[in-house]
């Protein structure tokens, strides 16, 4: 039940956040370059937004994969292995993403001449 419920909760929140992200980043369409991403990610409010966005998106995506896996695996031990793999994947990619979001200012300081 938890998987089912959280998939819907994350879906609703992600929908709202997606619209916001699209409005800020992609419309009107323009070439994405270092500068406009930098401007956004330097702002702590956007940092928080993207951190939450990332975590929720990863959860929804991997929970979705878990649903598919659940349809196809019946053996308990297989299910446990897949669950573990999904959690590890989530943790790794969350870490990768958060690193960019959180660490950004110092990178900017290094990258700009």
């Amino acid at each position, binding site marked *: *039940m938890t*998987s*089912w*419920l959280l998939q819907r909760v994350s879906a609703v929140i992600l929908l709202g956040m997606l619209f916001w992200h699209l409005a800020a980043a992609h419309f009107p369409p323009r070439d994405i370059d270092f500068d406009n991403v930098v401007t956004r990610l330097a702002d702590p409010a956007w940092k928080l937004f993207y951190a939450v966005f990332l975590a929720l998106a990863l959860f929804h995506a991997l929970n979705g994969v878990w*649903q598919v896996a*659940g*349809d*196809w695996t*019946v053996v308990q031990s297989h*299910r446990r292995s897949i669950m573990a793999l999904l959690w590890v994947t989530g943790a790794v990619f969350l870490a990768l993403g958060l690193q960019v979001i959180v660490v950004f200012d110092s990178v900017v300081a290094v990258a700009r001449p």
Partner: protein
Amino acid sequence: MRLRITVPRASRDGPERPVDQTWELDVPEGATVLDCLEELKGRHDGTLTFRASCRSAICGTCAMVANGRSILACRTQARQAAARGGRLRLEPLRYHPVIRDLVVDLAAYWRHYAAIVPWVTPAPGSPEREHRILPRDVERMGLAETCIHCGVCLSACPIALSDPDYLGPAALVAAWRFVNDSRDTRRRERLRIVDSAHGPWRCHTVFNCAEACPKGIDPTQAIVRLRGLIARERLSGRL
């Protein structure tokens, strides 16, 4: 009209792989798939094996797959089931072992059904008056009571392919029916049984079952309502 009917001939005592057999026959325009089968068996090949009984969509015996769609043979017009050129391929229900030709062993279907405690357990002792079921309960059940256990819904369900332990639309409709029966005292136990990894959480609101059901029952609706009920009861601590 002229039809070209193909049936995979098979027997669990015979060779491993079924062998297709095709017949050409002329039937009246309004003939049902069952009419065609009776014609085939009567005049073309007496060894063709299929189940049928009431011919009026009440016994649920003649379920099968026609051109890829699970149907009740007595209630399906041959003209509608057939493809262009009058080609009709009849196959046994999915996911169940074939006994012979179009007859399958439905043990798995009944096992899923039995698992949800499909009977009313009233409070002990004799009541003063009859056991009453409230009109609002009947309304909430929808058409769940009219299920004839034909097995078409389970055969149409794509989840049953990948998960043989999935309770399936029919069992879940029955669960919904009994959970809404105010006379029953085993409601919580039943909900706990249903609330498993192979219960209503496996349904992905595909609606194949609702489209296929010959009695017009909407199992997807029952399953969605069942999910809502279990979620509310678990979240409020009642389950």
